[in-house]
């Protein structure tokens, strides 16, 4: 269980890591992220958002062209030792402040209760051919039913309604991936050494996710380690931890 001071320290560490990632990409002028939690005897949820509230302006040649907003809504793992991300949103807007409709957004929801992917990308664009296909969607799934109802009400479907899956909880992209894409493909001003710094952050993320994936499928991990020459065995009398098909099969 986390004490109040422990909670504050862990929330600060999480926000500090994210701030460092942003500064590694865009320089020291990025303002620190802001964490919030309720005072509680238990393990209250934690939120982390960018400052300023209107988003982090991203520049090309010193001129703001895009704005990034970041929201992480966190909870605690089952043993209340680590912050776990319940939902996250990374949105990119045109211009110097976030307003109106984003250009695209990366989102993650830990517990999905619909047929939409937990980790997904939504692109706020227009493509007539895609809209046309969406008007002909089937109605077997809830999403399809919703889309049919929307069309029946005279509202045209939009590309942003499509949730492109991104690998579920374990294999979803990290913040570094999104920042890397913004620098490489939009030519956003970045500090010297950004590429290596983001690569190191990605390395840390994927090691953490690999560890989580091993907990999802210990049988695979044991088999792979044995193929690599390790002698892997449980102590006598120990029960093998089961695989977690609910995680392996999630969208």
């Amino acid at each position, binding site marked *: 269980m986390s004490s109040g001071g422990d909670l504050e320290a862990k929330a600060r560490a999480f926000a500090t890591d994210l701030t460092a990632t942003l500064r590694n990409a865009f320089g020291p002028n990025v303002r620190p992220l802001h964490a919030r939690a309720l005072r509680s005897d238990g393990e209250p*949820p934690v939120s982390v*958002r960018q400052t300023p509230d209107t988003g982090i302006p991203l520049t090309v040649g010193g001129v703001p062209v895009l704005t990034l907003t970041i929201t992480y809504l966190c909870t605690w793992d089952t043993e209340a030792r680590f912050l776990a991300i319940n939902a996250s949103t990374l949105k990119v807007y045109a211009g110097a402040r976030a307003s109106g409709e984003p250009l695209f957004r990366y989102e993650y929801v830990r517990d999905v209760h619909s047929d939409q992917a937990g980790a997904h990308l939504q692109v706020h664009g227009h493509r007539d051919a895609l809209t046309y296909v969406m008007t002909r969607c089937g109605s077997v799934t809830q999403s399809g039913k919703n889309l049919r109802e929307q069309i029946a009400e005279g509202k045209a479907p939009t590309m942003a309604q499509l949730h492109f899956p991104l690998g579920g909880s374990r294999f979803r992209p990290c913040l570094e991936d999104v920042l890397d894409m913004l620098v490489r493909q939009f030519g956003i001003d970045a500090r010297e050494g950004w590429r290596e710094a983001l690569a190191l952050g990605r390395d840390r993320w994927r090691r953490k996710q690999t560890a989580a994936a091993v907990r999802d499928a210990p049988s695979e991990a044991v088999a792979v380690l044995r193929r690599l020459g390790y002698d892997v065995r449980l102590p006598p009398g120990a029960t093998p931890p089961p695989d977690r098909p609910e995680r392996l099969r999630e969208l």
Partner: protein
Amino acid sequence: MPEVELMTVEEARERRASVLATVGGDEASLRRRGARYELDAEELAALTELEELDYLLQA
């Protein structure tokens, strides 16, 4: 160094009311216009903060 703001439930509720007041106090309209992507920067920031506070308060 990032700031960690620890709030009481009352403080979070007061903050929520204050945020809503800065954008006119009509939450239903704010959410409706947000769903249509019609919010200016201050309104969008306010709606995002309302959703953040709702997440913290729901536990």
